[in-house]
């Protein structure tokens, strides 16, 4: 049923204006992705402002195309100059650059393009199949379940984006939630933590926060590092050999599924997806010793994983209004700005929108494949632009993008403040993704907690009553305490009888 609706929307959206728009937007996205220091998040945030006054359909198709193009585009600089264009392509450097050094740069780009397309296609299938199901399930979520779900989102994001020191991820997430409480709260209309500043009554707008945390931090970082002399490897025929794709069929499907599931987890994103897909490919490979030295399997895994994550990240955006990655967070903000209400109510108010959105994603993926294979060499000159020239121009665009949404200079200062906070956070090991996710989900946490308590006259028990709530409470508990010795020992004791029985059966 979903696939039929998708085909209907694909046919409906097929017109010259949409095709030209999506081709140009994907090209722009590839440029954003290619240039180290520019990220998909920044690209979508800037274009959100530029397309603010456009018709909703045109605006959203541009933003999706930028997202898809940017995540793919970073593979080019990763392969040709060993610098990932976006963080999501860091794993691509490991095998892409060695392939380029051995004279197979064109082959690597072709394989990266094809893998990215196939990853996007798997993500598209996930979007069409899972988003409606999750959306319908979410209609059963009441305040209690939504509270635990948003808390779980922040906790798991903190866990996965700071794997060596999760407490820093959780601290970032809680700071994000606390910052979201700034402004007039929804139930009694009391202005919290505004300190008399009128502009703070509306709280922190998400676009300035995202541009500051992801955009300004990158700009300052790149200007601090200085200009890096890029030596671009030669590129020949880019169209990949079909046999290479067929040989890696299992790898592609596995990496795609990993990408999708990591994308669905709130706030985690493409970086983790590409590394996990790469890791699984290495473990399953017959030649793991080739990984890191120019393994085609490794390259395919990382690129399929990060692009599949795009589709996966959009599943919770449409069904739960929870972003699966930082770029998805900007896309969520853009949907709100254009008057759409992603989340459980989308199933009721606009049930066909998921398929219209998926059709846009389909066109973006197809455009990425076409442009990725056909236009390579002319774009490579862009990699030679120095940071000292590019970064001030990008800052200009960030300023315009931040100002344009609300027309307030105050938002530019918010961007700068979050850039100043974000820079040491990065250096001290505190990830930005939980901070941003906490800021987005904080109002949901606040409203659902208080609404739930108002409905139950202050009784906390209903928060632990329903099956979904219990599952989410256990998930939050395991996310926060799962790695502690006490919990590990408790689980060990719990599974002791099962292990004993399994051993008995094995010996018999």
């Amino acid at each position, binding site marked *: 049923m979903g696939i039929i609706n998708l085909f209907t929307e694909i046919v409906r959206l097929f017109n010259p204006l949409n095709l030209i728009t999506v081709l140009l937007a994907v090209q722009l996205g590839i440029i954003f992705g290619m240039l180290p220091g520019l990220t998909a998040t920044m690209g979508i945030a800037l274009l959100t402002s530029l397309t603010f006054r456009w018709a909703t359909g045109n605006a959203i198709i541009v933003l999706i195309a930028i997202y898809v193009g940017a995540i793919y585009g970073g593979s080019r600089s990763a392969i040709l100059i060993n610098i990932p264009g976006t963080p999501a392509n860091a794993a691509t450097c490991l095998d892409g650059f060695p392939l380029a050094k051995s004279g197979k740069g064109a082959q690597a780009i072709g394989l990266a393009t094809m893998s990215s397309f196939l990853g996007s296609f798997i993500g598209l299938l996930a979007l069409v199949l899972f988003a409606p199901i999750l959306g319908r399930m979410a209609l059963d979520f009441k305040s209690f379940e939504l509270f635990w779900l948003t808390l779980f989102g922040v906790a798991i994001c903190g866990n996965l984006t700071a794997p060596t020191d999760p407490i820093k991820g959780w601290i970032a997430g809680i700071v994000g939630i606390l910052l979201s409480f700034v402004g007039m709260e929804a139930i009694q209309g009391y202005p919290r933590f505004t300190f008399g500043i009128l502009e703070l009554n509306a709280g922190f707008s998400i676009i300035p926060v995202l541009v500051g945390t992801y955009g300004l931090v990158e700009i300052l970082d790149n200007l601090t590092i200085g200009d890096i002399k890029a030596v671009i490897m030669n590129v020949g025929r880019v169209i990949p050999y079909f046999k290479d794709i067929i040989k890696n069929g299992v790898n592609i499907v596995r990496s795609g599924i990993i990408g999708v599931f990591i994308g669905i987890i709130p706030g985690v994103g493409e970086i983790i997806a590409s590394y996990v897909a790469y890791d699984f490919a290495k473990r399953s490979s017959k030649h793991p010793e080739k990984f890191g030295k120019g393994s085609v399997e490794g390259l395919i895994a990382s690129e399929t994983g990060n692009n599949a994550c795009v589709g996966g990240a959009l599943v919770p955006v449409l069904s739960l209004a929870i972003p699966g990655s930082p770029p998805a967070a900007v896309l969520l903000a853009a949907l709100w700005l254009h008057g759409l209400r992603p989340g459980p109510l989308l199933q009721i108010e606009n049930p066909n929108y998921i398929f219209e959105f998926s059709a846009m994603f389909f066109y973006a993926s197809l455009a990425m494949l076409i442009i990725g294979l056909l236009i390579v060499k002319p774009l490579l000159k862009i990699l030679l632009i120095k940071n000292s020239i590019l970064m*001030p121009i990008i800052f200009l665009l960030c300023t315009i993008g931040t100002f344009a949404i609300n027309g307030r200079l105050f938002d530019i200062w918010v961007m700068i403040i979050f850039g100043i906070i974000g820079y040491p956070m990065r250096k001290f090991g505190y990830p930005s993704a939980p901070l941003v996710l906490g800021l987005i989900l904080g109002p949901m946490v606040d409203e659902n907690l208080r609404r739930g308590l108002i409905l139950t006259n202050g009784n906390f028990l209903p928060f632990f009553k329903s099956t979904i709530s219990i599952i989410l409470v256990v998930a939050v508990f395991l996310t926060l305490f799962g790695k502690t010795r006490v919990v590990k020992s408790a689980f060990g004791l719990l599974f002791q009888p099962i292990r004993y029985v399994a051993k008995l059966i094995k010996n018999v």
Partner: protein
Amino acid sequence: MNNKQQMAKLDFICSIIIIIFSLFVIYKCIIMPKYDEWGLYATPGMPPFIFSSILLIMGIILLRRSIFVQGYKIRVKKDYLLRLYHSVAVRRFTIALSLVIFYSFLLGKIHFVIISATYIFVNIYIFKGTVWWINFIISIATSFAIWLLFKVIFLVPLP
């Protein structure tokens, strides 16, 4: 000083900042009005109180951890300060941030094209991006093109 020791010192400083921040938020939550007709659980200060208390606990855990690895042993020596002052990275960061703040102060007070062209020119000049006349052309052309594209063609408001 190795990376682990350095991180322990940074964790010590961060934990103190986190503890002070969370205590401040807790204080602010306690003095928020309580609406009797809604009940204590619905008071605006309740959710921030809960989360700032959790943050306080995490700050204490981080502090305790950093103390165990002697992160409190922070000595600001003169030669360290001198190294910091002469550090190219610190200078570049300070200059980049100062230019950003200065540009933002002047936005809205001077015409967008003039202030943006000046900002780009000064940036490229200080960070030695290219020769001065190419810099001049890039600055003017970029600022004008951005103004034209956003303000005139796409009707996006500019500061």
